[in-house]
């Protein structure tokens, strides 16, 4: 208790539900001034919800927040600003076409004279001070979008300082920084710490947590499952906290793994682009190959490059032994590759169209009369009905709008859409995200059935249990490279997670 009174930021028993589903189940933690407090946890653990509550973007259902001993009532972002909380966003909230000084000072522009004209000289001077404080050597009059991402981030920190922020939240600040830029950022954070700021540092990467944080709290399923001093803990302990003991999940029995003698369907060699540093692997017929890694490690980026959505600088793709050039999704589909994207609302579904249309968009040529393009309604309907039955879509009928379906059923629609294309390789990017447990099991079952029929699958996920339960072979990615390959029974969840977050392997 005594410790708590000393702490600058205290969060007590925060609950938050979205439409009846509890996302935060009473989270408590506290951080002192002059402390860097790390926040770790898997996807959906509640980190960003919690931080959005602190930043005034969501309102909490219950619980209390104390800042410097006083209860803070954070109702909106302005109130958070007044309470001295600043959020360094993943996607920067800045004004690209304005000067650096303008960006830092926009909320409190100094004025002078009888007409309260903006005092640009003073503005630049003050901005310069804050820039010096974060060690950014650029003129305050530079246009913001001439700076690199790292420099823009420093501007954002300077802006937070100008608002007298005492609590700074960094949400995965290194995700788009190079290692040199990361070091500069850490220097700034240490400086801020010395000046008495209270810093919350959200990250996936445990090596960063060990390097920069004094303490670390691990969130899992909306609860704080443990706070540790980084000096007294190990990577293994953190990994076990992150994984916890999961509810038993139902995974179907996989068909036997194809041996090395099996035919190779898809092979990629040395894929390089902005996010990838030479990715090579081969996929065998009837295999489920897992691509495991954190967000930004290059898993989705690999899939997007193979499917022709992202530009490749170099690299070769072979389909059943012959080299193919894939410059667009159309070409990819022609060579027999399908791709279920990770965000079904943005890239998977046409939400305002009904299920029937959504199911047949990729196979329009098959359901229409060649040449004139007239849709053969009967053929289409029988295909759609079959899909409903085979892929267990629960809806009022083929005419229901996709937007009104539950997450699980939406995902089943997207999945069936790709199953129906009869492609040879299906890439699934987070197929069970935002899907309830029942639908999850059904989706796993469907994938297995399709694989038994000869489909080859690349499964991308950041859930280690899904990797262990659903893949024949697992590739681990980090920083755009493949850093490990395991047969399913050769590894443990701890090893996978440990490899990903970058501590030494167990």
């Amino acid at each position, binding site marked *: 208790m005594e410790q708590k009174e000393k702490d600058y930021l205290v969060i007590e028993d925060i609950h938050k539900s*979205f*439409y*009846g*589903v509890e*996302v935060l189940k009473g989270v408590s933690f506290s951080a002192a001034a002059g402390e860097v407090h790390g926040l770790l946890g898997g996807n*959906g653990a509640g980190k960003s*919800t919690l931080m959005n509550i602190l930043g005034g973007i969501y309102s909490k259902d219950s619980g209390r927040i104390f800042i410097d001993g006083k209860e803070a009532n954070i109702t909106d972002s302005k109130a958070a600003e007044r309470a001295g909380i600043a959020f360094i966003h993943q996607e920067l909230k800045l004004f690209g076409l304005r000067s650096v000084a303008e960006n830092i000072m926009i909320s409190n522009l100094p004025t002078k004279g009888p007409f309260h004209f903006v005092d640009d000289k003073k503005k630049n001077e003050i901005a310069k001070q804050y820039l010096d404080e974060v060690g950014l050597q650029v003129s305050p009059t530079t246009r913001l979008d001439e700076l690199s991402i790292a420099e823009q981030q420093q501007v954002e920190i300077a802006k937070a300082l100008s608002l007298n922020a005492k609590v700074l939240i960094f949400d995965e600040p290194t995700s788009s920084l190079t290692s040199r830029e990361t070091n500069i950022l850490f220097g700034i954070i240490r400086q801020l710490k010395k000046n008495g700021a209270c810093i919350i540092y959200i990250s996936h990467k445990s090596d960063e947590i060990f390097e920069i944080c004094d303490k670390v709290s691990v969130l899992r399923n909306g609860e704080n499952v443990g706070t540790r001093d980084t000096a007294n803990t190990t990577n293994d302990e953190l990994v076990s906290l992150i994984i916890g003991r999961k509810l038993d999940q139902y995974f179907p029995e996989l068909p036997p793994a194809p041996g090395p003698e099996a035919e190779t369907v898809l092979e990629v060699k040395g894929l390089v682009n902005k996010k990838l540093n030479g990715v090579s692997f081969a996929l065998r017929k009837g295999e489920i190959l897992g691509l495991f890694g954190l967000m930004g490690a290059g898993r989705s980026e690999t899939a997007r490059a193979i*499917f022709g*959505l992202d530009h490749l600088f170099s690299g070769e793709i072979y389909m059943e032994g012959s080299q193919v050039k894939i410059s*667009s*999704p*159309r070409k*990819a*589909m022609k060579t027999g590759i399908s*791709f279920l*994207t990770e965000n079904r609302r*943005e*890239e*998977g*579904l*046409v*939400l*305002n*169209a009904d299920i029937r*249309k959504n199911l*047949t*968009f*990729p196979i*329009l*040529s098959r*359901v*229409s009369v060649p040449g*004139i*393009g*007239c*849709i053969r*309604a009967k053929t289409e309907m029988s295909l759609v009905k079959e899909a409903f039955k085979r892929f267990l879509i*629960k*809806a*009022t009928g083929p005419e*229901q*709008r996709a*937007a*009104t*379906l*539950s*997450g*699980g*059923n*939406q995902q089943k629609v997207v999945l069936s*859409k790709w199953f129906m294309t009869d492609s040879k390789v299906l890439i699934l990017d987070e197929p069970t*995200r*935002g*899907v*309830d447990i029942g639908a999850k099991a059904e989706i796993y079952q469907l994938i297995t059935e399709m694989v038994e029929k000869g489909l080859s699958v690349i499964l991308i996920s950041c859930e280690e249990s899904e990797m262990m339960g659903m893949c024949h072979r697992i590739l681990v990615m980090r920083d755009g490279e493949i850093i490990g390959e395991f047969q399913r029974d050769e590894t443990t969840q701890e090893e996978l997670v440990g490899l990903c977050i970058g501590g030494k392997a167990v």
Partner: protein
Amino acid sequence: MGKDTAKLARGPLSLKKELTFQSVMLNYGLYIAMLATFATFAIINDKFLSLNNVVNVFEQAAYYLVCAVGITFVLVSGNNDMSVGSQIAFSSVIATIFLAQGGSIPLSMGMMLVFALVIGLCNGLFVVIIGLPPFIGTIATGYVVRGIAANMTKQETQYGLPAAYTQFAWNKTLGLSNLTWIAIAITLLGLYILHFTSFGRKVFACGGNAKAAEVMGINVKRVKIACYMISALSAAIAAMMLMSRLGAARSGTAETLHTECVAAAVIGGTSLKGGQGSVLGTLLGVFFIAMIRNGLNSQGVNAYWQLVFTGGITLLGAILDSYKSRANAAV
């Protein structure tokens, strides 16, 4: 993730929600408004709902319906075309001058269609390839083509169409004027293409979610440009109909046509955000606006009131659309 789980908790579709006053107005508002106005006019004027009058209205609205059907394609594909009125002025003026000098009728029609394709392609290039805001790009091309027409005619009305051409509009087949038949045919064709072909499906996909359409292997840019070309073609056909009906062409013609077409389409349920709409809805919207105009005309209401009225209808349509898409998003 929060939203998905929320939907799960609420069930896929609760019937209760579907029957609120708001949702009824959003879904059936057009029909209710239509019935109400028709009833009002019918009470004031007993000839209003007579078969003769309705047929007459249809004939007057024929060219405008053809245009609106074309615009529906562009709207559903997620863009907008403000140049159709100017296109009509342009191609009708050129064709009339050509015909007045003794040019052949089929050749003039072919010429109009080719011009239409070129203008549609230009719109597509500016908006889809270069990325100009659809309104600015198409308004500007409209200015250019109308300016050319004005220059050719010095803003004088052009006469001298061959009798066969002008007679066509006034001849009747099976009790309906030829123009009405053409409008019906074009509407049916539009209905068929938009709702019953794979191309139509692609238009919906591109307008509803261009990113998803790209992932599903649809050539989004090509589809969107094709929509501009369809709109331009229908404008050319509308121009032929107008020439035949008026027996003349003028560079200042159809100045507010684009707004009226958009208003009709939006009132008929086509979304300004793309991805939603129907040719039948557009037909109803056109008919609705034309009937009200006819009613106002028969009451001797000034033409400028009608301008005010069209503006009002357009705003109403836009508001309706914005509430509808908000209601959809909130589901």
